[in-house]
């Protein structure tokens, strides 16, 4: 970015050329990215399928000592899993199901998988999105304050706190928050999420506070530290110096010249953190009894419920891929050089 330092306002200067060729170029670029995403998802599906198939005979695992004696149940499970077929046939049957929206039938309770996981998926997405909504402004705000007071006392204090928080695992944070806010010290927020039948966790907004707060505390330090580092780099650049020399007020310099240029690495690290959250909320969901995919995945693995594990793994992989795709698109849109490169 520093190469563009001579440009007074990088964003205004190089808007992509409007017109057919530009639009078509964007279309092609997007199609390529989407194609790559689908390809990745397909490769993931092979890995997920092989990994779950390589875990050994699920029927033996489910039946345990009854494997030899309970022939009827064994045959029923084997038919359901298509054990007799070759692994390739089974894979394509499964993939065909996925493509038509059929995630199969749970081995644990013989109910359709999608009906059981759909609400968990929504619950987890809401949790992650709420955390992101709280985390992004907070992380950027802290980074701005910190870089403003660069290497002065407030910056040192903030950096020390962030480093300490980054070093604490999220379940420790969660336990501390629970003991402070719901059990030992104060009794302000619920300690666990109790969902009424047919309801959603956010029916009682208070119960969302601690899980969201735990996730925010878990990811904010990383994002904030990276944004601060980028900001410092930008603030040191010649064009920011020039802007200051031109007499532009410091807040404007910070907002327009520095922050906008520091936002792209920020988006990348936010997306990485979001993707991590999608799969990594297991501990937080368990601690707060939050009805999301993490808890369900643990339960399914315990039950040797192959269909559920496959479906949940694919969904988590899908979220990773979508979040990364969105982050890439945003990064390109916000990076003039890359934008120009595509449309020309």
């Amino acid at each position, binding site marked *: 970015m520093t190469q563009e330092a001579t440009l007074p306002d990088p964003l205004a200067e190089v808007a992509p050329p409007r017109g057919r060729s530009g639009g078509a170029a964007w279309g092609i670029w997007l199609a390529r990215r989407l194609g790559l995403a689908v390809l990745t998802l397909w490769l993931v599906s092979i890995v997920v399928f092989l990994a779950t198939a390589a875990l050994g005979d699920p029927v033996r695992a489910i*039946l*345990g000592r009854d494997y030899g004696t309970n022939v009827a149940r064994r045959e029923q*499970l084997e038919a359901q899993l298509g054990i007799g077929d070759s692994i390739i046939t089974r894979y394509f049957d499964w993939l065909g199901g996925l493509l038509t929206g059929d995630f199969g039938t749970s081995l644990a*309770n013989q109910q359709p998988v999608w009906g059981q996981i759909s609400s968990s998926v929504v619950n987890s997405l809401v949790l992650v999105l709420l955390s992101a909504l709280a985390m992004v402004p907070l992380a950027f705000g802290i980074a701005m304050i910190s870089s403003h007071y660069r290497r002065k006392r407030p910056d040192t204090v903030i950096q020390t706190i962030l480093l300490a928080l980054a070093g604490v695992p999220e379940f420790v944070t969660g336990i501390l928050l629970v003991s402070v806010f719901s059990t030992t010290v104060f*009794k302000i927020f*619920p300690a*666990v999420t109790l969902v009424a*039948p047919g309801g959603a966790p956010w029916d009682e907004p208070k119960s969302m506070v601690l899980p969201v707060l735990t996730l925010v505390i878990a990811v904010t330090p990383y994002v904030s530290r990276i944004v601060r580092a980028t900001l410092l780099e930008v603030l040191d650049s010649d064009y920011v110096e020039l802007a200051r020399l031109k007499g532009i007020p410091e807040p404007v310099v910070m907002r327009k010249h520095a922050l906008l240029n520091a936002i792209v690495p920020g988006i990348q690290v936010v997306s990485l953190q979001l993707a991590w959250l999608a799969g990594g909320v297991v501990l937080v969901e368990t*601690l707060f009894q939050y009805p999301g995919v993490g808890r369900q995945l643990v339960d399914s693995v315990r039950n040797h419920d192959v269909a559920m594990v496959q479906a949940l793994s694919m969904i988590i992989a899908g979220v990773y891929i979508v979040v990364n795709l969105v982050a890439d698109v945003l990064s390109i849109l916000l990076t003039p050089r890359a934008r120009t490169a595509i449309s020309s």
Partner: protein
Amino acid sequence: MNQNSPGHWNISRRQLLRYSGVSAAAIGGSSFLVACGGDDGGGGGGGGGGPQSSGGRLVHGATGGGAKDTLDPHQPVTAADIARCLNLYEPLLIWDNNYELQPALAESVEPSKDAITWTVKMRSGATFHNGAPVTAEDAWLSIRRVADPKAPLSAGGQLSQIIDFQSSKVVDDATLQIVLKTPYAILDSLLAEYTLGIIPGGEFDPSKPVGTAAFAYQSFEAGKTSTFTRFDDYWGESAFLDELVIQDFADDNAKVNALQAGQIQTLDNLPYNLVDTIKGAGAGVLTAEGGQWVPFTMRVDQAPFNDVKVRQAMRLIVDRQAMIDQTLSGYGSLGNDMYAPLDVAYAKDLPQREQDLDQAKSLLASAGVSDLQVELFTGDDIGSVAVPAANLFAEQAKAAGVDVKVTKKTPFYDDDYLSYTFAQDFWNTRNYIPQAVVGTFPPDQGGTYNETHWDNADHRDLVNAAAKEVDETKRASLLHDAQEIEYNEGGYIIWGFRQQVDAYGSTVQGLEPSKYLPLGNYGFRKVSL
């Protein structure tokens, strides 16, 4: 005996220990059961005391549960299932807090003199949640569902083998006659399992479960929450609570936090290490004697344990109190190498065995194995007590010059289970006869889990004779002799029995400890807020 529902065996077997689950049978108190109505709504439990008031909504935090959760009265697996089961359905008879038989949907269950024909008199005035009266036909069809010889459910393993389905008949709406193929003097105890709830027509409808207990079904989501409302037409004293919610908890800490935050009012299976936390937070802890045990198992047909002196030496090596203090945080009672401590026939008079290293050494010396080395197999899937107990035993054995190598297997319950020379296992609360059959008989005679390969005809004859003996005194005397044989020669080291520890919030009244199942047999009917 004790065949669980297909496909659920591994899970349930492990969970039985913690959840005080399916005990297949037991010797009842009296064979003559006098109708005595419901128990009194006692005022124990929640420190408050004073009169109990109606109304309110209680949320119970149940341990475990997940996608496999079921409301099926005849195949509950987890603690959450059992709690729901006991508050929705009732069997003909039921174990009370002292592990004694009480009438429930039957007013009486009486054997003929030869213990072949049993007459069940149904309670008059009992109705299902849908308003229909409970008849002998419902009871018989429910028993048939559980004891289907082709696919017996968890309480039906033994029943399916002994009931003569052709000769048994429903005499009238209030009378059922059960005819057995062979005399069995403790049939009443088989009918008292909570896994034998009576349902209309013996048919379970998952979308609309109907039972007779003090709470009626309202909603159910596997692995999450289920809700129940008070059943006002209950035949006994109705519940105090308006609504009962049973919430699954996958994590112990979440459960305890929820109790401290006042989100739930009761929880079962409180981890011992959290007892002080709960007490410090002003909540109540309910402790009850129990009959669950985690023995060391020595194969009596293999060296070195085929020599009874070596077995006795091993039994003398254990410091039983230390075992209880260290692996159960003190929440246990002493074992004396005999099981079924809650059975009326438990041989209390045999002297308590204590650690005696000198005698152990001399026994080992006279057996010619002074420098004994053995491998002890253990695993986490036996339960949280197993591995610490194994390590502690290895420590204690050092003092007697025995080198015990502890090998932790994952999973423990694999194809080698029942072949280990020296290992551990867990067992649930049961009375003597069913436990002896399943644990010490040869496999072809019902000993599905005979870890010690114990094969003693004298012992077996005594147990079989007792199972046919209607006279209680004679039965107790036969069982005493059987226990004495095991006390002197058996392959188990039974060092203690685990206590049940549950917790409740400060607003809860009416809970009483029970030897049978957690939280006073999940007796929410007697609880008020």
